[in-house]
């Protein structure tokens, strides 16, 4: 009995505490009239099992860019719709609910970067183990350079099946784009890289000088 009481108290406090932390992040950063509707949208997302951080970031972005309150609310609404679409794509492609929040964020990015939903589904189905961010962005990089989405997805899927590690998939698209820069057609570039799989040029790394000068972002100024 005592255990249930403790749990009930915790649940009673947890929701307003969580809401407090979202509001705490938004206060002073976005117009005050936008906070209640944005907060509601974030609560909806939470209840649906969708990731909330992308929505908080969208609101903060709007505030930083001095967008008017209605525009911020509309942008958060669009982002919420994108996450719902992403979840639907993942479920159609075979991911069992509850779908991982990071995967929904990744697929939302892929759709925003112009990948058609059927192509995203194909990549999700082929890359059975998350995270899929590298695979999605590798395909999207090629599509951004006007490669046919299906051909781009085909190459990245083949790279995955050939054992190219997740962290090297972006190097596959880089290798293709390098071939185009050398003067090959897109089809030739894809074929050249496909023939060489799973071998890839070594990834470019920052120079020692620039790494030596790297710094962590300074703390935000207190409100």
């Amino acid at each position, binding site marked *: 009995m005592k255990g249930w009481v403790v749990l009930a108290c915790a649940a009673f406090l947890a929701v307003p505490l969580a809401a407090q932390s979202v509001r705490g992040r938004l206060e002073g950063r976005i117009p005050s009239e936008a906070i209640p509707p944005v907060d509601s949208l974030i609560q909806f997302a939470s209840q649906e099992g969708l990731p909330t951080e992308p929505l908080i970031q969208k609101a903060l972005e709007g505030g930083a860019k001095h967008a008017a309150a209605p525009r911020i609310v509309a942008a958060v609404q669009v982002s919420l719709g994108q996450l719902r679409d992403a979840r639907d794509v993942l479920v159609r492609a075979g991911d069992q609910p509850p779908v991982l929040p990071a995967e929904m964020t990744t697929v939302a990015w892929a759709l925003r970067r112009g990948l058609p939903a059927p192509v995203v589904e194909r990549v999700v189905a082929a890359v059975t183990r998350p995270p899929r961010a590298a695979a999605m962005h590798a395909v999207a990089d090629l599509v951004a350079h006007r490669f046919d989405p299906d051909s781009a997805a085909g190459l990245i899927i083949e790279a995955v099946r050939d*054992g190219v*590690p997740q962290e090297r998939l972006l190097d596959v698209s880089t290798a293709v784009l390098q071939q185009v820069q050398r003067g090959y057609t897109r089809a030739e570039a894809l074929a050249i890289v496909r023939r060489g799989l*799973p*071998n890839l040029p*070594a990834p470019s790394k920052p120079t020692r000088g620039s790494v030596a000068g790297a710094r962590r972002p300074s703390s935000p100024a207190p409100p």
Partner: protein
Amino acid sequence: MDVRGTPPDAEVVALVLAGDAEAFGFVIRRYEAGLLRFATRMLGSRDAAADAVAESFVRAYRHLASCREPARLRTWLYRIVTNRCKSHLVRRSVADVPLDDAPPVADPADTEADLERADQLLLVERALADLSPDKREAFVLKHVEGLSYEEMAAVTGERIPTLKMRVHRAREALLKVLEDHT
């Protein structure tokens, strides 16, 4: 070199870390044959393999304090050598991997079986050289060096399913070469 009766790895590591540099000779004598064999199969050249293994031993000596499990020194050494081989390979394309030196000159005393064995070895070596570095590494660690998949995971940092897939693909490629030539 007969290494029976020499101290176990954990004891040797403790001696070296206490300042007895000469004790590192035990480590070299115990493991160099296997590491040289592995590196030769990875790089296709005994000279390159000797360079890679020597560099690896020197590195291992200098970083011995970071070997967290002296009882698993062997795995740790293989890890250093696989990384060294990868660095060597990155500096030249796989297609340029030289098959070790010139093929052995036939000795009139060689039997028919010896010659057939030499031919077969050449075939297998070429097939190995045609594999991607990842598959070659996995096949050699598994079948030549006799590491378990768990040990291979510790050496390469890859997951066991990935390593199994690479070994399987390597076997398939090897078998195709062997069947094409029978």
